[in-house]
């Protein structure tokens, strides 16, 4: 019961973990290379969600400091970090997609199983 309430209270963490596992599973098992890249993004995004969820405080304001006022602010650090993370994910995605384009030019397919078949026939 304790675990169950723990899960219900922290459902946003659970969503992030489920997304992470979906991404990882797709990335490792699907043969289509574009799907692998998409799954990589899902995986990264889930961690970004988790990070942003950590920084969230209920009822708090955006962290723009007003002199003298006694306000609770949300933690700005996870947001800033995840912006960096998103940039990194974008560059990895761009590089991965350009690799897929190049591989496609050799094999006329994005499917890794088909590529293995073509290679085994040679």
């Amino acid at each position, binding site marked *: 019961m304790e675990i169950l309430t723990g899960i219900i209270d922290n459902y946003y963490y659970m969503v992030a973990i489920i997304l992470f596992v979906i991404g990882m599973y797709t990335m490792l098992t699907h043969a289509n290379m574009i799907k692998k890249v998409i799954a990589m993004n899902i995986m990264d995004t889930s961690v970004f969600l988790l990070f942003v969820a950590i920084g969230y405080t209920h009822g708090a304001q955006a962290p723009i400091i007003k002199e003298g006022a006694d306000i609770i602010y949300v933690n700005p650090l996870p947001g800033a970090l995840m*912006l960096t993370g998103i*940039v990194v994910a974008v560059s990895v995605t*761009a590089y991965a*997609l*350009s690799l897929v*384009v*190049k591989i496609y*030019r*050799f*094999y*006329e397919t994005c499917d890794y199983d088909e590529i293995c078949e073509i290679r085994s026939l040679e």
Partner: protein
Amino acid sequence: MPLSRRTERRGGGTAIEDQIVRITSRLVAPFIQVYGIYVILHGHLSPGGSFSGGAIFGASLVLVALSFNLETGAKQISHQLASGLESGGAFGFILTGLIAIAIGGNFLANRAAGFPMGQAGELFSAGAILIITVFVGIKVASTIVTLFYTIIEGEE
């Protein structure tokens, strides 16, 4: 040797031949660019900044190249210039950090090194951050253009 059957697509022959798209994008592009510059310059004052602004600016250049053809796009900014700017933008970032060392702070120090702070909320404030934002904006915009060209021209 590539097995590709699609080599005849070279030279931007597949660009959209549509007047509506062309006129619209020609009209809209300058506004997008101004907006991109606005977002870059106000990075230290409002949401957004070098990455978002640079991406907006780069997207406008890609839009023109897509709706016309590669030659028209290259008239705006050539592949060579874009990759040159890319190196230059990144190097400018490092240079700003090194200037901070030269005037007596740590690497990338801002106020601690003595960059003028200005009045909070004005455009020319926050010292080195504005300089860095501009350099990173240039870098991001040119990177997006370079990526576009690299993927399009890849076969050469």
